[in-house]
């Protein structure tokens, strides 16, 4: 058993659970983005832990970390773009008031 790997993965799992709770329970768009950021941070922790304790000779694992960081940046950019558009048209970024997006 690699105890360091277990500790890192457990922290990642706890961050994932917290982020999932946040993304589902919050009504404000910016807070939902925060929840998704936590979930992606959990993925980052897992990737670095797998690289460090299972495949330290493989740089592709670090490359995946950079890709997840890019996904985090994209998610924030698009999220805030939508938030600005929504705030301009409706004066609020409360998702309870965005039921027309349901389809």
């Amino acid at each position, binding site marked *: *058993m*690699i105890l*360091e790997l*277990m*500790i*890192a*993965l*457990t*922290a*990642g799992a*706890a*961050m*994932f*659970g*917290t982020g*999932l*709770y*946040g993304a*589902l*329970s*919050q*009504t*404000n768009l*910016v*807070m939902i*983005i*925060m*929840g998704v950021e*936590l979930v992606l*941070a959990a993925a*980052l*922790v897992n990737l*670095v832990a797998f*690289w*460090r*304790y*299972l495949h*330290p000779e493989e*740089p*592709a694992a*670090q*490359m995946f970390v*950079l*890709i997840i*960081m*890019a996904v*985090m*940046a*994209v998610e*924030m*950019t*698009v999220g*805030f*773009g939508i*938030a*600005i*558009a929504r705030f*301009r048209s409706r004066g609020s*970024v409360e998702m*309870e008031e965005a039921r027309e997006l349901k389809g």
Partner: protein
Amino acid sequence: MTGMTAQMIFLAFFGAAAVWFGIVVFRTKSMVRSALALLFSQTAVGLMFLVMQAEFLGVLQIMMMATEMSVMAIFMVMFMMDPGGMGAMDMTHQKRLSLWAGGIGLVAALAVIWLAAWGPAVPNIPGAAQQAADLGRELLGRSMFIFQSAGLTILTAMVAATMVAIAPRKERKE
């Protein structure tokens, strides 16, 4: 105290800090405090990277998140009806479902983590300079297409987000 024991202690400490600040994000009523808590959580993640000897990624994570969370704090103040949390507004819904989903996700992940056989430990890793050189070769060699695609995706997202955020011409004339 051996190197691996120290690594384990610091990993547990920063891991606990990352999780604790992550919980604070959704517990505090003040949105500015939420953004700061997320900043501390992401910084703790960066420190975990440093403990795991991924120096480049650790520094990158801390620098990137410091900027990202500062922007997020500004947006929070701009868009929230009660950014200081003085009105103690409840901004949650479907709490029970969210708690169940988060709890089930956590338990499932923990079960996989603690029941899987991860194989023997690999204690020796390349030095920081060698890691950076290997990553550079990986990015500009085998993974160049993926890396370029990520760059292009960020550029597209930036342009799209700006277009969505710009006021329509009619609105600007008024």
